[in-house]
């Protein structure tokens, strides 16, 4: 494959989507709300199909396709509002509320998708691309739109950096410092929805969550600063987006979503394994070193933990 103009547009589109998801994913990762992105993504299917149906009825295939993105945005936002409504109005806890929401919105979306396919409305084939992603058909305008969205998410994160950092680490202290949780929470949900909707074309609704979670989890392993983590996560997200798109382009008709998800997940796995200090290997080495340093005897003569009964420390042993 050679890098012509179209390929460049497609690649930069998927890289932008990946970078956005990587950056935003850091906050959801640190707030332990990784699944939030998945709920938004799945739920946007109802918005996508609903908007498509409405557009078809009102103005035909062209209008229908133009309404997809606003529809996805609306679907994502409404699903989040629904989650908070259920949480506030019923005794149901947030995790269950999310489960109910995704069942309703994703289930409804799939149902509507079936109907649209059965009706064979003109242009309905494009909807399938939103399930598992298809980056190859990204247009110049769409990449431009992605660039604008990425810039606005970037500016938003930059402006509210201090507040979002404090809110993610210590929400009570943030509130007591005069930053209302409601505003910051809504701000975070807004950037998540924007990042998710931006990534739907390349990732699809089903696997979008992996692009939010994996780059953040990978980046966390390598640094002790939030800024570095976010920079690294966006680079890894962009890299996953671009390589996934390239790889899936070598085979025909392979959806891009799964390939990008695999790339992002492998970054996370490698980081969990080999990162210095926090990685699994580094910890094993450290444990071995500690044992040698603190217990420089062969194992039978080791005092304490190994033969506690002999020195009368074992709770079940004779005193």
């Amino acid at each position, binding site marked *: 494959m050679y890098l012509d103009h179209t390929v460049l547009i497609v690649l930069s589109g998927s890289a932008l989507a990946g970078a956005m998801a990587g950056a935003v994913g850091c906050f959801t990762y640190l707030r332990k709300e990784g699944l939030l992105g998945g709920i938004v993504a799945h739920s946007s299917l109802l918005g996508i199909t609903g908007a498509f149906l409405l557009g078809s009825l009102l103005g035909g295939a062209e209008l229908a396709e133009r309404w997809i993105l606003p529809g996805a945005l609306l679907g994502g936002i409404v699903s989040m509002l629904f989650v908070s409504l259920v949480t506030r109005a019923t005794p149901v806890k947030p995790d269950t509320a999310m489960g109910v929401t995704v069942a309703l919105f994703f289930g409804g979306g799939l149902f509507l998708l079936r109907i649209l396919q059965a009706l064979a409305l003109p242009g309905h084939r494009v909807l399938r691309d939103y399930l598992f992603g298809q980056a190859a058909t990204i247009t110049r305008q769409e990449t431009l739109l992605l660039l604008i969205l990425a810039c606005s998410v970037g500016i938003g994160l930059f402006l509210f950096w201090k507040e979002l950092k404090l809110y993610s*680490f210590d929400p009570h202290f943030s509130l007591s*410092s005069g930053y209302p949780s409601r505003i910051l929470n809504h701000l975070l949900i807004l950037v998540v929805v924007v990042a998710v909707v931006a990534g739907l074309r390349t990732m699809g609704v089903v696997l979008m969550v992996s692009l939010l979670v994996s780059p953040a989890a990978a980046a966390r392993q390598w640094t002790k600063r939030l800024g570095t983590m976010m920079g690294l996560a966006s680079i890894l997200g962009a890299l996953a987006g671009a390589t996934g798109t390239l790889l899936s382009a070598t085979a025909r008709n392979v959806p891009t979503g799964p390939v990008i998800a695999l790339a992002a997940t492998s970054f996370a796995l490698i980081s969990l394994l080999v990162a210095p200090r926090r990685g699994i290997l580094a910890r094993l080495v450290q444990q071995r070193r500690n044992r040698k340093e603190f217990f420089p005897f062969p194992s039978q003569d080791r005092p304490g933990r190994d033969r506690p009964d002999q020195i009368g420390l074992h709770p079940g042993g004779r005193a």
Partner: protein
Amino acid sequence: MTTEHAPSIPALAISDLTVAYHETPVLWDISLTVPAGSITGVVGPNGAGKSTLIKTIMGIVPPAGGEIRLFGGLSGKERRRVGYVPQRASVDWDFPATVLDVVLMGCYGRLGWFRRPRRGDLERAREALETLGITNLEHRPISELSGGQQQRTFLARALLQDADLYLMDEPFQGVDATTERAIAGVMRRMQGEGKTLVVVHHNLETVETYFDSLIMLNVRLIAQGPVAEVFTEQSLRATYGGGFP
């Protein structure tokens, strides 16, 4: 910020405060005053509502009824003069930040939206680290701190708030003896600078060492006043039931 108040205005005055989670009252009809410049302990058994009292004063938990006056004022404006040291276990310490990052968070409230810490804030953060004896930990990731070091970090952050009234939720919980002495020293020093401290506390043996006045709580207010007057067997029984330690 000024640290001088007319002695007649208490730092904190609560009247008829009731707080409930769902339908269970956690605090019932509490009225109390904390004199400015004192170190006041808050004691009571688990579930007595000690943390809830602090969180309600901080505006984190909404009250069901009653009135909270900070330095005589009712509006949220006085809350800027209140510093907060939450329980150490209330945050996830596996967060990508250094000790200095967390301490700097203490000035965020004063800075307000969009403004970033400046060189002056950085210098004050370093002074706070020195006061707490953790200058050497400045660049340490907070995920690698011991319990005592975490508590010192939180206290340094509170110093940066430069508040007049401090609410501290169990600052001595699970820290080593050296840290406990260091924290107690910092508290005395803060009192010397005219600050008022309200401290949730567990260990009854050290009540007389650390505090001048005491609030004894078990959903209702049992007793409040100078330690010498209220820290009696009778009020301890009333607070903890028959089996107080």
